[in-house]
Structure formats: C-alpha cells, structure tokens
C-alpha cells in the first residue's frame, strides 16, 4: 500500500481586480474547484493547510487564517495549519501536505492560497522598521540591490532582464486566464518606467486578487479518482535568514541548496527538467534561479536567456502560463498548478511536448526563504 504523495486536484479563481469579493470568497471558490477537479467532495478532506497572501496576513484579529477558512468550509480535519514563508509559502504548504499524507496524519490534504490586495484598500504600506527612515521601501528596492550586484559582477544588461519580461508575456498570450495577455517587445520593456534602478515597472510582478488550491493525497487513493496523480519526486527548502550578514545573500539564492537536494532525492539533474516553474516576483529572481538551480553557470544567466531560450518554443520554457509577471500573482500556487497541467498534458495551446519532469520554486520575503518541488507525470 503506497502512501506516496501525489497531486490529484487543482483549481483557481480568475486573477486580476475582483471587486466585491473577499479573499474568503476566492479561497472557497478555488477549494471547490480543486475538489471538483479530483472528483472528491468536502467530506473527503481531512487536512487543511493555508498560505494567506501578504495583504490579508496570517491573523484576522487573533484568529489564524486556517481556522477561519476551515470554519467557512465546515471542516474538522485531522491535520491543519497556516504557513508564513512569503512567496515560498505555497510551494512549502504543498510540500508539508505531502509530508503529512506520507506520515499518515491525513489522507486528503487541501492546500489553499488566496489574497485580495487590489480590493482591500491600504493593504500594502510603506516599509516598516528602521530602514524605512532611509527611504528603503518595498520588495522592489531589495531585489534591485541584487540586480545591481549582478550588473556589476557579470555585466548583466537591461536587455537580459527584459528577455525575462518579454518571455513571460509571450507565454501568457497563450493562457486564457492570464491577467496580462498582450505581448510586449523589448522596446516596450526598455521604455518602461524606472522604479528603483536598475529595475523597471515591467521587471515587477503583477498585483492580483485571486486564489488557488491544490489537493494532495496518496498514490493508492488516487487510483480511483478523476485525475491521474502527479507524483512528488523530490522536495526541499533552504533559507537565508541572516540576510545582510550572510556573505552571499544578494549574489545567490538558497535555491543553490534546495535545488540539488530536491533533484537529488528524485535522482535527477537540471538536465532532466522539461519545464521550470520559477518564482518570478522580479525578473532578476528568474536569472538568479537559472544559475542557482544549475540550468546555467553562475553569472551566465544573462546570455543564457538571449534569443528567447526561456520563451515559447525555447529550449527551457520557464513559466509557460506567464507566471507572476503575466499570469497573475498567485504566490507560488499557480506555478504548482501549471506544472500539474503540463504534466497531465492539459495545457491547451501552450502545452509542451513530452513534459514529464517539472521543477517548481517558491521564493519569499527579503530574499530569505526558498522551497523547491520536483513533480513528475
């Protein structure tokens, strides 16, 4: 009897500005869609793990997110909790669900991400803490520090960053639910407003209302379900919590540690990855991950992405649904879902031929957290 964890259901809402609906509306809609996809009902769910987006936060007063969502869904699960790992949270809760299912703590674990920053006024505020006194605001400033290091050390250009942005929009033009479907040119990218130099508006991910959910169960249970189970071949996390004190903090991501671990557990190397779902809050993070996951050598991600290599039809398609830059901000959960769709062969116009191995990443907070999943059909 195999208790190996598989993904059997995925679902999400629209992404964009969804007025008049709270994050709770969106999360329950996504949860129902994931259940329906698997052919399961509410009474089958005995595990609930949530990744509340940054605008709603993990606490509503003193009520933790999973408790309020669990109450709304009428669940009395055997296992529950919420994670707060920033953009690594969604990948991390799918990993945690796999661990819980494989340990026998629950059989069918529902993983939910949701947020409604566009319809919740004032939910993004100026930076807090002593650094705000120096005008150091927002995730864009922090990631611009990393981009500047890359420019300085390796000669990375605006066009290299632009390749990532252009590829994301090209991918999203073939994704019916994507928030930004119109392609952009390199000229469009270069004309984009500099926000925090060297990063421009088109280097930054979208802000979205939306929710996404994934259902994890055992390989055995999956045999009777509507969808084939997508296997979790390997997973790992790695973090850089000492931030500025960590010597390599702005030069490499903890992906350099979690990647080999996750791929190693799967008995695979980067060359075996057919599709990469890389967390793309900013274009520079895609470049860093291409290096730190070993898709190219350190410092060579700029030339690596030239000529559309990560775009549609490229040799390493990255984020074929458009990612955070174009599909919508779904933490990492839309990345997990796109990996599942590609591995099932149900990605429609953007379906990649022979996609058998997917690498999914989540990256969060002040470049502090990282999580990696390796999925296989």
């Amino acid at each position, binding site marked *: 009897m195999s208790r190996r964890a598989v993904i059997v259901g995925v679902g999400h809402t629209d992404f964009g500005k969804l007025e008049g609906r709270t994050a709770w509306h969106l999360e329950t809609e996504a949860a129902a869609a994931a259940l329906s996809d698997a052919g399961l009902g509410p009474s089958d769910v005995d595990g609930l793990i949530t990744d509340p987006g940054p605008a709603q936060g993990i606490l509503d007063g003193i009520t933790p997110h999973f408790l309020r969502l669990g109450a709304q869904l009428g669940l009395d699960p055997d296992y529950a909790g919420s994670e707060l790992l920033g953009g690594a949270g969604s990948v991390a809760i799918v990993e945690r669900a796999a661990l819980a299912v494989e340990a026998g703590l629950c059989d069918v674990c529902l993983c939910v991400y949701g947020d409604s920053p566009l319809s919740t006024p004032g939910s993004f505020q*100026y*930076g*807090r*803490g*002593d*650094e*705000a*006194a*120096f*005008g*150091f*605001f*927002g995730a864009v*400033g922090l990631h*611009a*520090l*990393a981009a*500047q*290091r890359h420019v*300085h050390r390796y000669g990375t250009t605006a066009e290299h960053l632009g390749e990532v942005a252009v590829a994301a929009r090209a991918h999203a033009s073939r994704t019916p639910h994507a928030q930004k479907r119109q392609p952009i040119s390199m000229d469009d990218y270069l004309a984009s*407003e*500099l*926000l*925090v*130099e*060297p*990063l421009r508006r088109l280097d930054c991910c979208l802000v979205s209302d939306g929710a996404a959910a994934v259902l994890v169960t055992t390989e055995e249970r999956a045999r009777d379900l509507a969808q084939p189970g997508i296997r979790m071949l390997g997973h790992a996390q790695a973090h850089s919590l*000492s931030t*500025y*004190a960590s010597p390599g903090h*702005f030069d490499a991501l903890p992906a350099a540690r979690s990647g080999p671990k996750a791929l190693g557990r799967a008995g695979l190397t980067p060359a075996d990855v057919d599709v990469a779902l890389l967390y793309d809050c900013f274009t520079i993070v895609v470049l860093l991950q291409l290096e730190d996951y070993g898709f190219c050598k350190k410092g060579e991600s700029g030339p690596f992405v030239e000529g559309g290599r990560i775009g549609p039809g490229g040799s390493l398609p990255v984020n074929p649904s458009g990612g955070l830059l174009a599909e919508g901000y779904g933490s990492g959960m839309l990345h997990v879902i796109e990996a599942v769709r590609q591995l099932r062969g149900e990605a429609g116009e953007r379906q990649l031929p022979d996609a058998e191995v997917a690498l999914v990443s989540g990256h969060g907070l002040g470049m502090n957290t990282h999580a990696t999943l390796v999925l296989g059909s």
Partner: protein
Amino acid sequence: MSEAQLPLPQPDALTESFWQACRRGILEVQSCSACGHDFLPPGPCCPRCWSTGLSARAVSGRGRVFSFVVYRRTYHPGMPAPYVVALIELDEGPRLISNVVGCAPEEVAIDMPVQVRFEAAGEFSLPRFAPAAVDGGDA
C-alpha cells in the same frame, strides 16, 4: 528632504543605544566578548556563537558600497526621488542599509569607499554615507 514626514526609526530595548550613539555622532556596532564578532543590527545574543556577553563598540564609520539602488519613483512624500539607498559594508564587517549622499546618484558605484555623515531627522540623527577621500584617509 522634509524629514518630519518620513517614517522614523522605532528604537526598542535592543536598538535604543545605537540611536543614542548616533545622536552623539558615533556609529556603534555590537561586539561579542566571547568570540569577538562585530555585528548589526543589535540583537539579544551573538549571531555567531550565541553568547550574551555583548558590548557596544564605536567603529570608524568607514566602509564601502556593497550594492545600491536609485529610487527613480517617489514612494513617500517625505523622500522625493531621485535618491540612493545602499547596503554599506563597514570596514569592521557589519552591513547596514543607508543612503549615499553628497554626490549625484550617477556617481555612486559598487565598492566605492564611503564615510558616515550624520544627518538630523526629527529627533533622530541618521547615519548616512558620503564618498570618502580616495586615499582612504579620515574625512
């Protein structure tokens, strides 16, 4: 800059002495009496050996630009663009977020030597950094 409108530091029991020293024109790091590690921001124990035997130590105020960014868009009315935010690596090792002032944003570069310069902001004195003399001498 109209500093009064800016978010100001929020000292707590760990950082109060750092900000007090800034008011006296002194840049302090925390120093571990057990292993000698110097670090910022101030904390409850040495992040290298976890010793709680800590003391504040005045440093030179000299450092270099580890990385920097230029805010081209104004995010806060009290901090109009353009301005430079930099991660400064002090000669003694610790790094801190600050501003590079005293030159145009276009003149700032990674590895540029800088020297601390205290500037008033409300009741605080903020440790900002300006280009240092090329020969590395004291400002």
